[in-house]
């Protein structure tokens, strides 16, 4: 029943409830607009100078409009108390426990999304702005920190398992960006100096969505929704939703790579 809004395909557990409110409001708006317009157009004909050469000093005598206004108020209260406030609180207060979620940190920058997984130990390694190297280490991860040894970082690639809550700590390294996943109905500003948790539960894998759309080239994208400079328009990341097995396999592969890198370091260092 929400199709008339033309929203993007939905792929998260909470998305439908947001869409529902969205469509309820739009129904309310639609009904109001149609009723008011009908009355309006009727009056334009009925009370034109031609049809009604002599105006009536008093005009409307009924109090129907008071009821209409009260009706608008009640509808708004219902939307507010019944839907919007609890749903938003669900978004920002009822975060999943870190152990039960796929954990990641996303650091936005001009013009890329840096993704940082804590690795098997579940703890993020230390980062420091002084260590930032735009090509080798854009988030300034301190590999000396024992907690950082198994940390996985990517640029513009977010991998997540399906049907498991993802908990993402969002921040930015330079200016304000906004982390937007249209299909997940997720949007949150990434503000430098602040770290916000964002969570959602993907329910449709990339492969399933490709099948559903009949488009083998489809991929979820991370969009930037806040003006952040010249290339704001193309600040695009990619998100791949996989089955848990695929995700685990991907993560294991990354760990092997890390181990290999470290061996190299040992030989040469």
């Amino acid at each position, binding site marked *: 029943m929400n199709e008339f809004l*033309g*929203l*993007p395909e939905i792929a998260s557990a909470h998305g439908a409830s947001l*869409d529902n*409110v*969205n469509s309820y*409001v*739009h129904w*309310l*708006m639609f009904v*109001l*607009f149609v009723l*008011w317009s009908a009355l*309006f157009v009727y*009056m*334009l004909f009925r*009370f034109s*100078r031609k049809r*009604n050469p*002599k*105006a*009536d*000093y*008093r*005009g*409307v005598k009924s109090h129907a*409009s008071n009821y*209409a*206004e009260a009706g608008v*108020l009640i509808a708004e209260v219902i*939307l*507010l108390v019944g839907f*919007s*406030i609890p749903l*938003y609180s669900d*978004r*920002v207060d009822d975060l999943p426990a870190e152990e039960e979620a796929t954990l990641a940190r996303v650091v936005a920058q*001009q013009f890329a999304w840096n993704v940082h997984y804590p690795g098997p130990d579940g703890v993020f390694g230390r980062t420091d*702005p002084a260590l*930032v190297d735009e090509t080798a280490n854009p988030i300034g991860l301190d590999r000396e920190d024992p907690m950082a040894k198994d940390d996985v970082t990517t640029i513009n690639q977010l991998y997540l398992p399906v049907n498991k809550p993802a908990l993402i700590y969002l921040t930015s390294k*330079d*200016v*304000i960006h*906004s982390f*937007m996943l*249209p299909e997940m109905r997720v*949007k949150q*500003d990434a*503000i*430098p*100096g602040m770290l916000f948790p964002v969570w959602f539960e993907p329910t449709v894998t990339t492969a399933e969505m490709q099948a559903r759309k009949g488009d083998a080239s489809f991929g979820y*994208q991370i*969009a930037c929704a*806040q*003006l952040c400079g*010249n*290339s*704001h*328009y193309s600040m*695009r990341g990619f998100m791949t939703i996989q089955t848990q097995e695929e995700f685990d396999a991907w993560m294991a592969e990354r760990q092997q790579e890390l181990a290999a890198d470290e061996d190299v370091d040992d030989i040469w260092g």
Partner: protein
Amino acid sequence: MSEHDHAAPEHAAHEHHEELSFWRKYVFSTDHKMIGIQYSVTGLLFLFFGFCLMMLMRWQLAYPNQPLPFLGWLFGEDRMPGGIMLPEFYNQLGAMHGTIMVFLGVVPLAVGGFGNFVVPLQIGAPDMAFPRLNMLSYQCYFVGGVVMLSSFFVPQGAAQSGWTSYPPLAEVNPFWGQTFWLVGMLFLIFSSLLGAVNFITTIIQLRAEGLTFFRLPVFVWAQFVTAFLLLLAFPPLQAAGVFQLMDMVADTSFFMPEGLVVSGQLASGEGAARAGGGSPILWQHLFWFLAHPEVYVLILPGLGIVAEIVANNTRKPLWGYKPIVYSLLALGFLSFIVWAHHMFLTGMGSTMSAFFQTTTMIISIPSVVILTALILSLWGGSIRFTVPMLFALAFLPMFGIGGLTGLPLGLTAPDIHLHDTYYVIGHFHYVVAPGTLFALFAGIYYWYPKATGRRMSTLLGHLHFWPSLVFMNGIFFPMLIQGLAGMQRRLADGGASYGHSQEVIWLHQVISFSAWGLALAQLPFVVNFFASLRSPKTAGENPWHATTIEWAAPSPPPHGNFATVPAAYRDPYEYSVPGEAEDYLPQFRPAEGAAAPAAVPA
């Protein structure tokens, strides 16, 4: 002592008889009507300029990265190499379109122009309370405008961080453009503050005898509330502007947190030029503390104009005058406690967001009341479809769409999807473009005969109105569709880089052609505006058979406005009073056989 009391009037009377030099009459005038006209013409020119910026952008949105035909060479290699618009130039155009439209176009026209010209006339005053302050206000506006315009020519071009100028972006973007923007804004703010003081004092002090507050025309009420909004909401932006200016020129860190790394360079904290430790959120709060009241500044004068014209052309009193007035006051008051609805996605806690959602829903109620009253005023009327009335009538459903689309934005749950998409652009343009702009056009058609003594052409008026109505909707309705599909705003390629906007991207062409069509539709207006200056002076004092006091003055009103000091004898919209021969009973016409009104107006 009494000698002193009379000194001032005599002096002024003397001045009145002197022929004023060209400069004193047209440039450094202290006459509220001349200042109003200066404001209006400058405002219109800025509107036109802002529109031109937008038409350029619309090419890039419809045909991203294709060279602009015919005109591309005009803008130089550092803006449009080979006629192809650089994203930084797109961002400059966008930021300046927003700034110019809001602060240099609509507000000066609606408040500086209409307010200055009409308010003293409508309250039966000889001028504004502080004529020289009034002139200073215009001059500050003018300087602010010149500073803004010149910023296009500074190294690396004008401000390019949106009209909202969010730091840190604003502070890491090219220095000169942003600094000019800030200096220009400080001038504009000062101008508005002077204007606001003047308007409030004038309305309180210079009302004609018998013109009590509840006999004021709705337009005057609207300007009154607007002036309070300007007076009390602008100072926070003034403070924020000073902070940001300090950040720009003195390397302070009001809005810069620690540990920023911009393009590989440490930008704040130990070892950087700035200490860091500031808060980007602070700017947003101070900005929106102004900017939400500011959007009501954009709409209230328009609502006032529409109310005047609706009453005049339905030939009956406004329905629900008092509810309208109370709603205006409520809107003014509430607009100070909804600002954070522009910041729902800055990580606000659920309590605060609940608070601001609630205030936002509450503030929509007075708007509904006003709109309902205006629509129901048609009931029982005898509607004359004059050109001003056409614009005023179109305003109602257009503002309706704009206002209604504010509701999903005001609820955080839908706003998660809609924030910073074209839905927001569609929402507010419906209120400001086919809303406020139409109201302003209506006002121009309505008061032009008063200002010039001449009538505007009805035919050209129709040629202006109908295509404008169609094209306005052709521009802004598709934006709502694009927004629902998730297309973000401020994209220099119109969303071509993003997968989710592909299905609605073709609408950009519809929008752009409508925008260029809209430009053509303004030609009849421009012709009408200037050609009518040469038409015969046939308007007379009261061409619309209206009731409010401005129509008691000659057209155009001389210096000092009224031949005899007017007074108010009744409510503002006494049309079709039962038992009267004519269908209008002006506020300023003494009742037959009645004594003058009570000496002390309350």
